[in-house]
């Protein structure tokens, strides 16, 4: 069963330089909520930003991960 910590680790590994905050929304291990900040998002539409995150999980979304609610933000390069 996925957990918030492993989802956070996979997002951060899948999108280099990103920072993710992940909550288990219901405590049931299948509805998660993530806020992801990444420089890689800059210049992309919301759809494209969310797709980058969804692509990390492939078929698991809608399967073991019933829902992954996303908020994505481009990071300002420092």
């Amino acid at each position, binding site marked *: 069963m996925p957990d918030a910590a492993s989802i956070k680790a996979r997002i951060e590994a899948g999108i280099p330089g990103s920072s993710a905050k992940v909550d288990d929304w219901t405590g049931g291990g299948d509805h998660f909520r993530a806020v992801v900040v990444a420089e890689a998002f800059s210049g992309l539409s*919301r*759809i494209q930003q*969310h*797709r980058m995150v*969804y692509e990390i999980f*492939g078929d698991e*979304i*809608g399967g073991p991960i019933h829902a*992954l609610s996303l*908020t994505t933000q481009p990071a300002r390069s420092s």
Partner: protein
Amino acid sequence: MSDQQDNPIRQAIADAIAENDVILFMKGSPEAPACGFSARTVGVLQALDTRFAAVDILPDPRIRQELSALSQWPTVPQLFVRGELVGGCDIVTEMFETGELAELLGAQDVALASEPAVADGSLVQIENRLS
């Protein structure tokens, strides 16, 4: 399988998207959503007085599979405006809160300019087009 001509479900989905300026693929119907995310998305569209077509993806699991293959988007609901995927519940809600959704829907006066094939709230029945 990937050939659209040999794939009546995917073709029916593509046709429905092309024929309806605002179309929501959801679980359940606007009157009886079968999922909280679908319910929230319907609520946003209703709050904006948007006229939209709806497709219930639950009657046949292939609808969901083909929709995601077509849109490259893994989850449901999915909102399309003028043929373009806007997003799911998260993006629609965020765009509602920022006013971008009202702008998108109102920009060309979608609700009034188009004559949708279906009346408010009625379902586009993808599966009925297959037989």
